């Protein structure tokens, strides 16, 4: 029988195969080798502390890179950090990296940025590798055909010490994307992944690795593919994968950590031949989604499966629940928290804040697209809008194109890079009751600040919303 892309990457990283397979136990763990490890300040201090306590070393410091992203201020970096607890976490990471010989892109580095933005940017993310990070959005790197997944702090410590991880092999899940959206410049990969999560639910992918496939996927740029794989975790999946192709290989050229010249050519040949699912590969589950008539997607509730078309109204709990009592309770609570009435057209929803940023949508293309929407227009007087580039490199590249001027002229704040208001660990938070159009990945209660109300959208939808002060169908603008 043929193998899936996931099987191939998995098989080539097995150090010790699941011993229980032969012993009649349903599924036991295998020891998997980790090629690449990314570290940030929030989920690593306890791992390093425990290494020190037990007197253990980092097995391969060169296979790990670190950055500070969750906690960092996105305002003027020459100012001192006001929050002493955040400061302590940033300093702790810097000290740990120094002591264990790990490269760190800290707050003063021109390459600092969100861990899932700088990994690909530096060419650290490569096809066919295994990549882990103490962060659930590690699934982002699957866009390169890497098996990439989030882990907990204890596992971070395990990977630092052993360069391996015990893992129960997930099941395989193929999602076929059919069709091409009409007005395709107004329909983004964010809309596609929101539509997918709307269909499969927040736990539809639990216990699986999703492979995304289809003509539409092949036509996407690397940055757009990353947006899709990034939100695989929002559908419950352990990881998302897209088979690498010429788009992927071209992206790697000239990046710092990527193989160079003849070596890259040799590897590309190997990747081209091997990193795809066999035609007769069997997936544990298959779903097909047609995107021909896809409209811009907007979340209305408090989890990323609570999604509607921009042309829709807020659904009633009954419409959402379809007879499921638990979903009914969830929807009632969500509508109360979001302060929404069923039947209200989405385009009637006014927002207080707009956030363009996060590991989902803060890359150069996201900012270029959003800038085309805001150019020559003014942010609504009712709205406070900000752009937070994913990395210092994205920021400087955008500034070379003059995007900072476009955004600032229209009334956006132009910030330094970091996770920022995606999770509000730094001062960028929503106030209680504020409503926000956000390009991030989670609309959970309190995610962007206690009492804050988040609606997830694409960068161009967020940009148009900032101008009008309420949600609009961006297809009418482009």
């Amino acid at each position: 029988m043929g193998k899936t892309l996931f099987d191939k990457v998995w098989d080539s990283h097995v150090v010790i195969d699941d011993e229980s397979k032969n012993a009649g136990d349903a599924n036991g763990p295998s020891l998997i080798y980790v090629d690449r490890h990314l570290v940030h300040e929030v989920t690593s201090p306890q791992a390093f502390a425990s290494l020190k306590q037990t007197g253990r070393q980092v097995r391969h410091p060169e296979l790990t890179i670190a950055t500070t992203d969750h906690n960092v201020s996105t305002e003027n970096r020459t100012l001192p950090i006001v929050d002493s607890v955040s400061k302590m976490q940033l300093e702790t990471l810097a000290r740990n990296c120094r002591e264990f010989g790990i490269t760190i892109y800290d707050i003063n580095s021109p390459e600092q940025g969100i861990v899932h933005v700088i990994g690909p940017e530096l060419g650290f993310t490569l096809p066919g590798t295994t990549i882990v990070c103490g962060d659930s959005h590690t699934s982002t790197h699957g866009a390169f055909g890497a098996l990439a997944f989030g882990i907990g702090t204890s596992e971070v410590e395990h990977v630092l010490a052993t360069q391996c991880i015990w893992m129960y092999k997930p099941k395989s899940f193929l999602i076929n994307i059919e069709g091409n959206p009409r007005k395709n410049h107004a329909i983004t990969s964010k809309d596609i992944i929101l539509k997918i999560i709307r269909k499969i639910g927040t736990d539809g992918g639990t216990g699986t690795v999703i492979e995304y496939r289809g003509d539409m996927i092949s036509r996407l740029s690397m940055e757009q593919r990353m947006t899709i794989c990034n939100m695989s975790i929002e559908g419950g999946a352990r990881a998302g994968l897209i088979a690498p192709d010429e788009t992927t290989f071209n992206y790697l050229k000239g990046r710092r950590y990527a193989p160079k010249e003849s070596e890259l050519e040799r590897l590309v040949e190997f990747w081209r031949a091997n990193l795809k699912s066999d035609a007769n590969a069997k997936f544990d589950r298959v779903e097909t989604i047609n995107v021909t008539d896809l409209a811009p997607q907007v979340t209305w509730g408090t989890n990323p499966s609570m999604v509607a078309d921009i042309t829709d109204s807020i659904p009633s709990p009954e419409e959402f629940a379809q007879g499921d009592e638990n979903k009914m309770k969830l929807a009632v609570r969500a509508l109360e928290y979001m302060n929404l009435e069923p039947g209200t057209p989405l385009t009637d929803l006014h927002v207080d804040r707009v956030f363009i940023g996060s590991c989902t949508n803060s890359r150069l293309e996201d900012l270029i697209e959003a800038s085309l929407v805001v150019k020559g227009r003014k942010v609504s007087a009712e709205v406070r809008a900000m752009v937070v580039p994913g990395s210092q490199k994205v920021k400087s590249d955008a500034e070379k194109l003059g995007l900072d001027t476009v955004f600032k002229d229209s009334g956006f704040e132009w910030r330094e890079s970091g996770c920022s208001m995606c999770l509000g660990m730094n001062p960028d938070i929503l106030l209680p009751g504020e409503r926000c159009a956000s390009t991030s990945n989670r609309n959970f209660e309190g995610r962007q600040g206690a009492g804050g109300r988040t609606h997830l959208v694409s960068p161009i939808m967020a940009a148009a919303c900032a101008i009008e002060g309420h949600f609009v169908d961006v297809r009418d603008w482009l």
Partner: protein
Amino acid sequence: MIPLDMTNVDTDQIIPKQFLKLIEKSGYGGFLFYDRRFDHDGKPKNDFILNDPKFEQRQILLTRDNFGCGSSREHAVWALFDYGIRVVIASSFADIFYNNCFKRGLLPIYLSQNDIEFLFSVVNNSDMSAEISLQKQIISIAGKKINFNIDSTRKKMLLEGIDEIGYTLGFEEQILNYEKSSKTADYNKYLV
């Protein structure tokens, strides 16, 4: 047993981000479900189950589908453990949370929808306590015994409190052999 009648409880609810700035593994119990338990002025909200005096000091949390979804923060497990929870029973768990539980000695038990409904009906109508044997994989409550599944490796890990890193380092030879034969070793030279 504390009946937390909710689906899709994400780790942002279990431990909100403002408490992720500590650099220790303990001290999170007071922050468990913080935004659910306390209002903006820090006063307890009476309508949240953990604030019901009846459920103080309970060690088992009963809940529903997809518990622990979202962020990978192991702090969610630390907070539950520090608060005093030792077992979480749900109809399903998110993958990363489920893995994290075993690292701190928290037992996650998944049961069928029917068993979950039965437990909710027992707990909602009486103040009965449950006894859980990990060894026998049995929950005993209201004269009924419910079997649960757990794979043998994880069970052993909880029962014996194995040092996982020490265990893995015992496979040094296999890891070295893998490193010698791995293709990726070719391009790791660009990392320095």
